[in-house]
């Protein structure tokens, strides 16, 4: 408990302070409410629209994020492993991967909607495009870590390539892999939101766009708040997994 207080205390104090200043500024009418609503107004909007937000729009977004992240994880991990196993694949694909991240997503998203339609697939595709990269890079960099001395030791013990991969290469790769995974968990929320924003009929991204168009700024912020919480939850879920699988590995 004390550790918790020590770890999160400064953050909580700063957040409370900022919220207080924000609230105060809103009450002094420094900014019009349709530009920046007060935190209490956002919370009120969240509470008033809780059924719509939590029961209708949140599940749609969560669905897209989970599918997008799952596809990115499976695909990205396999791709990174394949790239490490076969040099020509690495040479051919690595530049492609980098290029895919230089394309401005916001211009690409409408094209994706055109290709994949207004259905779930379009949003998942954009979520995958954003979440894929950190996973591939994390897994690839992790598997590229120099552990040749350990590999040689295992070889001298008669280990097969498979055993060396599972007992040395994978454990060495895990810290970098989880870093990529944590980023991806956050990015996939961003990707799904962009997808909904540009072409959707449900989801928190769609909802926030509609609200902002109607100058219902407090409602829009309520949706944004939920999206942020979703990203934080994804991040901490992966961080949980990390502490379970990565014990003391990062020390070396």
């Amino acid at each position, binding site marked *: 408990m004390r550790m918790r207080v020590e770890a999160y205390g400064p953050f909580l104090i700063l957040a409370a302070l900022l919220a207080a200043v924000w609230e105060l500024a809103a009450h002094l009418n420094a900014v019009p409410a349709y530009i920046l609503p007060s935190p209490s107004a956002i919370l009120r909007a969240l509470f008033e629209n809780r059924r719509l937000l939590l029961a209708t729009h949140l599940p749609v977004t969560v669905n897209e994020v989970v599918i997008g992240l799952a596809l990115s994880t499976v695909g990205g991990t396999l791709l990174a492993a394949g790239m490490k196993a076969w040099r020509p694949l690495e040479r051919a694909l690595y530049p492609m991967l980098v290029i895919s991240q230089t394309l401005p997503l916001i211009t690409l998203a409408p094209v994706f909607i055109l290709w994949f339609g207004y259905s779930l697939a379009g949003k998942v595709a954009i979520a995958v495009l954003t979440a894929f990269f950190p996973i591939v890079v994390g897994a690839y960099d992790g598997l590229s870590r120099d552990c040749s001395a350990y590999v040689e030791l295992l070889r*001298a013990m008669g*280990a*097969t390539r498979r055993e060396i991969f599972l007992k*040395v290469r994978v454990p060495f790769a895990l810290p970098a892999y989880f870093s990529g995974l944590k980023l991806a968990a956050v990015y996939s929320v961003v990707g799904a939101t962009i997808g909904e924003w540009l072409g959707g009929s449900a989801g928190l991204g769609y909802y926030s766009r509609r609200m902002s168009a109607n100058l219902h700024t407090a409602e829009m912020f309520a949706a944004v708040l939920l999206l942020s919480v979703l990203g934080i939850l994804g991040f901490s879920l992966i961080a949980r997994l990390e502490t379970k699988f990565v014990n003391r590995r990062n020390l070396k």
Partner: protein
Amino acid sequence: MCYSGANITRGANRLRWSNGAPDPWNLNWIIPAEGSEWTGSVACLTFYDSMANSRPVRFPLGTERVFFVLKAPSSSRLFPSLEKGVILLSQMLDVHRISYSFQPGTIPPVLSELSFSLQAGDFVSLIGPSGAGKSTLFKLIAGLLEPDAGELSLYEAGPVPAKERLRHIGYMPQKDLLLPWRTILANCLLPGELEANHASAYSPDRVLALLERFGLGTERDSYPEELSGGMRQRAAFLRTVATGRPLLLLDEPFGALDALTKQDMHRWLLSLWSELGVTVLFITHDLEEALLLSDRILILNGNEGGLSETEVPLARPRSPDDRFTPEFVKLREELERRLRP
């Protein structure tokens, strides 16, 4: 796991366990009548496994110490006919005129036409200046590299290719290379997890017992980073022993330790050595260490100087205090002279 103190004679033999305890396997050794199954200086014995199966095994007459390999894998090319039982070997390794160059044809070879052999139970040190190719020689023997020319024979089974050697020799590199995310116990159980070692590796029970014997019993659940250098080296040595392979190559295992810890390790190894029943080839830079531990010393001179060999005529048991006896000091001087070109 070694039998000692028994001079093998014809007729029934009951061997004694090395530390004086009764034979844990309760084996009966019967030397056949003269002329029945002799092959040169090697007698063919019959090993009775619960009196039901009998298999012939070979081993030299007149040996004081006997070493053997238990449970050789049946799939092994080395012991094709043996499924379960005991093999007694006299020659563990024979290196015959091997040469190796990092880039054959362009740069002169690191090792050229080296020959030597190891007998069962030997503790042989390999010394020589840096860059003479000691570690390379180890990698060649272990099977991580294949020589450009020459043959490496193992366990009296004839020349063995590198891939096969990898499965039959224990190799301990200079660094301890304990996996940082595994506890000491889990590190020592690693060899047994590999398919290649299923037949030879120590069982978890034996690893646990050995951890106690190595003074690591209380540290079995610690992580490598929590241990001192000496303890880590012991754990790495245990892991090598736990492969269950009868021939171990130790590449400067105590090289990184301070002088006092090194002495502790020597005292410890000397007290433990006879019960492990392994044959050891040991790289070191430390002449005192070489003299103290070994039966023989191989001197590898760089620049194609070749290999020379010297016996260590010091009686066992030895102790680190022997370093100050006049005999030891004289041997050390001689050795140093031989190393200087």
